[in-house]
């Protein structure tokens, strides 16, 4: 019976669209056919964005995944790099994606615009997934992709597991959260309204950059870093060679002296880039740091700042 309704739905869909778009162009016809076959569960899914790659790996069965972006198996930026091994990679060009004849394409809202528009114009079913800035965004994106994949149940399970784990992490709060700051190469810092800020807050830290009024990413002058005296400095993996301009601030005598008075933490970048349930790994890693910090302060008898 459900199969019949699906079929009926498909027929109605074609009829409706043909009536609405009376243009006899073959493009429109293909578009109608493709968008209506998308009513059934997609069997060939292509992702052209690093973040949708990971959500797709979490939500779909492997055989359904036809291709992922070429970044998906880079372990310095993708949290699921090992899962992506063996799956065909694409470089986000309309031509190569067309030839795969996918019935669903996942893209980010900042994936090359001309390519996304061209694929849509050619009638493909393209879902554009926005950048996640909060846990609510992560839930929203999971639900969005799960719906497109016809894996709603799996999506709900993933969100539920996420919420349970998040609640656990949030339960271990201390009254006086230490102050943390992101300080990466090129003096880059991350302020409010970002995924990194959300992760930091969930782990019970205050974000210095956000308190200084920085929203999104911005630059933190070395002077400001030292005068504000954060409890921990969080830096990403070193990408530039020693002695490069990007790392100049780290070599600065003032920074070297300051480093001894604070805690330096290096984080695993892949967990912080995309809004997936894996950000909870990042939250839990930071929670450990916070507990260590509290323990160290107790032994030295220092009051919590």
């Amino acid at each position, binding site marked *: 019976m459900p199969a019949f309704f699906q079929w009926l739905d498909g027929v109605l869909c074609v009829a409706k669209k043909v009536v609405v778009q009376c243009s006899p162009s073959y*493009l429109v016809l293909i578009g109608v056919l493709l968008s209506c076959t998308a009513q059934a569960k997609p069997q060939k899914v292509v992702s052209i964005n690093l973040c949708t790659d990971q959500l797709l790996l979490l939500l779909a069965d492997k055989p359904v995944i036809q291709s992922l972006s070429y970044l998906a198996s880079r372990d310095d930026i993708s949290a699921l790099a090992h899962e992506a091994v063996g799956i065909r990679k694409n470089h986000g*060009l309309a031509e190569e994606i067309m030839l795969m004849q996918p019935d669903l394409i996942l893209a980010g809202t900042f994936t*090359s*615009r001309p*390519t996304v528009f061209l694929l849509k114009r050619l009638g493909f079913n393209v879902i554009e997934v926005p950048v996640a800035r909060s846990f609510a965004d992560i839930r929203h994106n999971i639900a969005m992709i799960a719906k497109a994949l016809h894996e709603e149940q799996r999506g709900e399970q993933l969100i539920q597991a996420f919420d349970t784990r998040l609640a656990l992490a949030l339960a271990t709060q201390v009254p006086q959260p230490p102050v943390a700051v992101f300080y990466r190469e090129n003096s880059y810092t991350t302020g409010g309204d970002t995924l990194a800020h959300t992760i930091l807050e969930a782990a019970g830290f205050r974000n210095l950059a956000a308190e200084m009024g920085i929203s999104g990413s911005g630059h933190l002058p070395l002077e400001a870093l030292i005068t504000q005296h954060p409890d921990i400095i969080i830096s990403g993996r070193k990408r530039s060679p020693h002695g490069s301009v990007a790392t100049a601030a780290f070599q600065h005598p003032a920074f070297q002296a300051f480093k001894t008075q604070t805690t330096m933490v290096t984080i695993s970048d892949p967990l912080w880039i995309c809004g997936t349930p894996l950000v909870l790994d990042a939250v839990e890693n930071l929670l450990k740091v916070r507990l260590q910090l509290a323990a160290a302060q107790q032994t030295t008898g220092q009051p919590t700042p």
Partner: protein
Amino acid sequence: MIKMARPGLFSILFISTLLAFLGSVVVGSSYVGGRELLTVLSGTADQTTRLILLEIRLPRALLGLMIGMTLGLGGAVLQGFLRNPLAEPGLIGVTSAASLGAVLTIYSGLSALFALALPIGGITGALLAVLLIQLLAGNNSSTLRLILAGVAVTSFASALTSLVLNLASNPFIALEIMFWLMGSLADRSFEHVWLSAPFMLLGWCLLLLQGKALDALTLGEEAAQSLGFNLNHIRSYIVIGIALSVGAATAVAGAIGFIGLVVPHLLRRWVAHKPSSLLLASGLGGACLTLLADIAVRILSTGTELKLGVVTALIGAPFFLLLIMKTQKELP
């Protein structure tokens, strides 16, 4: 001798442009090539092949042709009008203003809403730049003022573009802007062709009509005026023509450098240094070179495509240096 050679030159340019155009249609990342093109022409091709050739490759080749033509023609006109060998289509600020307009649509998120938001932003930027240049250069026939006004607009627009990049709160936006600024024709569709073609065609007409005036200008401004040419009007036509054509080209593909600067120099000696004959020749030459560069982009890149603007600069810069060294030898 030279007069005999000229039709020959045009047929060579015409044929090579045609070949480059065909090449641009048959070269791509997938297996679809010349044999598939024949099946499309004979009507026996399958849907996928048709879509790849007619909806992905054809608009790309058409845009390469039109943009190259625009850049070559624009360079030749400006070099002739300003009598300055370093003039290029971006000199009067149109390229940077169009880039700024386009970048602002990416920054504000408008470009995510519909495909033409970005090129429309670019064209608006270019048209605003013309108003500014006309205002700055005034009713003065001095070419120096035009150049200075262009430099001022260029630096101001570039500064604002950098400001936008600086203010981008999201690294993904900054990356998209940076990639766009490098110039590319990848995955443009017929929507882009239909939007930019009227502006480019109108611009070409305005520019091609200035041939006689440019010939007269080789004798000097006063001589040209005494021959009955109103230099103020001619300057306005040229500025508007450049803004329409180069503005539309930049709005669609981003900034593509060196074509407009190099091509007129390459062809000048073959048209006996006559500016009016150089216009069409340079337009065809520009089209041919741009198409070839865009083919090179696709052949050279194994995975992620190189950007067209990067490749034209890579080919153009050493070539230009060679040219300078050669002219130095020829000069006494």
